[in-house]
């Protein structure tokens, strides 16, 4: 089991934003979470990745309980998230964005940056090679030297994905990767995600755009008002009347 979510709960002033959510993401799986606005999906993400402290419940990643681990510790353990509104390093180029994400860089220590010039240089070369690979894979070569702040929304999402890949993450949590992205790029992005998944990286994806997600994931969880109301294959879930009621509501009627 890769990721186990065990009864996560979060409330603001009596209002339960996430209540007792529990499900599991098997190793190398592609899992989606859907739900209407305000269902608590993004909060759930923040709870899993440690950006918010849960009131109750826990998360286990690859069998180890994460308890009150910080976002940084969680990311270092191999589980990396992206954001709903892309958080690119806007003044750095795409290449630098990816370089920055590589873990364990000696040159990030001031002393080494000044005095262990050779070591740092060698390591930079190594990272640069990996970055070129990633850029090629994500088809970002044309914009590699453009400051990330000037990219389109879709390209920024690719940069965020690229950064997550550079960390060597085994599990990537994507927060609405298709939101505000044009259909061609959505298709492109889906293909990349599937390819990565085939290489063994697990994905947990929050999405609004149901059709795109349906084609991508093997398992779908549905949230409504902070609660998990259904789980199963996309076909099963969409057939569930409670889901149709809560999520598709007016559209289905």
């Amino acid at each position, binding site marked *: 089991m890769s990721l186990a979510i065990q009864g996560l709960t979060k409330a603001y002033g009596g209002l339960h934003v996430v209540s007792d959510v529990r499900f599991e993401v098997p190793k190398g799986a592609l899992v989606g979470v859907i739900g209407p606005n305000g269902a608590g999906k993004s909060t759930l993400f923040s709870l899993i990745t440690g950006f918010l402290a849960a009131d109750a419940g826990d998360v286990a990643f690859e069998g180890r309980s994460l308890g009150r681990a910080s976002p940084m510790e969680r990311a270092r353990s191999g589980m990396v998230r992206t954001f*709903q509104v892309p958080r690119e390093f806007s003044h750095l180029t795409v290449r630098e964005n990816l370089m920055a994400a590589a873990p364990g860089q000696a040159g990030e220590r001031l002393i080494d940056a000044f005095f262990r010039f050779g070591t740092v240089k060698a390591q930079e070369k190594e990272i640069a090679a990996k970055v070129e690979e990633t850029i090629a894979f994500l088809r970002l070569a044309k914009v590699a030297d453009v400051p990330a702040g000037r990219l389109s929304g879709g390209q920024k999402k690719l940069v965020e994905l690229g950064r997550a890949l550079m960390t060597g993450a085994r599990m990537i949590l994507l927060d609405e990767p298709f939101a505000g992205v044009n259909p061609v790029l959505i298709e492109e992005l889906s293909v990349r995600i599937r390819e990565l998944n085939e290489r063994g990286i697990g994905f947990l994806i929050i999405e609004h755009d149901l059709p795109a997600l349906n084609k991508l994931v093997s398992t779908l969880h549905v949230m409504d008002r902070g609660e998990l109301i259904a789980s199963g294959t996309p076909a099963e879930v969409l057939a569930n009347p409670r889901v149709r009621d809560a999520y598709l509501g007016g559209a289905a009627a």
Partner: protein
Amino acid sequence: MSGFLELAISGLMSGLVIGLAALALTLVFGVARFANAATGDFMTIGAYAAVFGFTATGSIVIGGLLGLFIGAVSGVISYFLVFRVLEGRPSVSALLASIGVGFIIRSVLGVIYGHGQQVFQLPLVRPWRYFDVRIQPNDLKIGATALLALLVVFLVLHATPIGRRMRAVADDPMLARVSGIAPRKVMFALWAMSGAVAALAGVLLGIRTVIWPEMGWEMLIPVFAAAVLGGIGHPVGAVLAGVILGVVQEIATPYVGFTYKLALAFIILLVVLLVRPKGLFGRVEGVR
């Protein structure tokens, strides 16, 4: 013991002034999301306008209302000329611009009035004594005025449509924009209210002390401290924190040394932030 009580009352008075100014600061912060360093200078403008009105009419009430009005107008003007343009920029930009606005205000006041002091020529009265505690009638009036102002502000915030919109914008600017609350109108009301509240703090401070171009600027650090202590963007917190700061400073400084009064405010702030990084009353903000 009676000395102790008198100090507490005195601290309460200073605290109300600091709290009102912190309220003005925190109102803007809640909605516009930056710390307005010109808050102190709005206080000064209010005090000068009030002294002008008072000298012209002989009525402190008319003078005070004029101060409030001019404070509100200054707030609105600074919003339209400067801060509206800076919306959506990093909060530090607006903070720096507000420091510049403060400089300009002090410059204008300095040119018009010079650097000498002005005072409210109000009659001073000897205190009443209750059980050996001296109560100063002027304090009661100042305290009552401050409380009345707070009441009005909270009524506006909680019982009027525009106040509800302000709070909605403060809670979630994005959501408020989507749900069609006209931010312009809200911002207009907000800056007017913040300017008026700051001006009132200035008038009360002016009555208790003297008026000079730097008076508000010099108060900025305790005011900032109170706003942060209360949980920035939290109106009730700002006022309570101001009062707490005022009282603790007044009571404790005889023991730690008078020259460390300001340092004490800072240390209280630091300790509280260490324990509660969001301030005494602040909510934890998530990552959107």
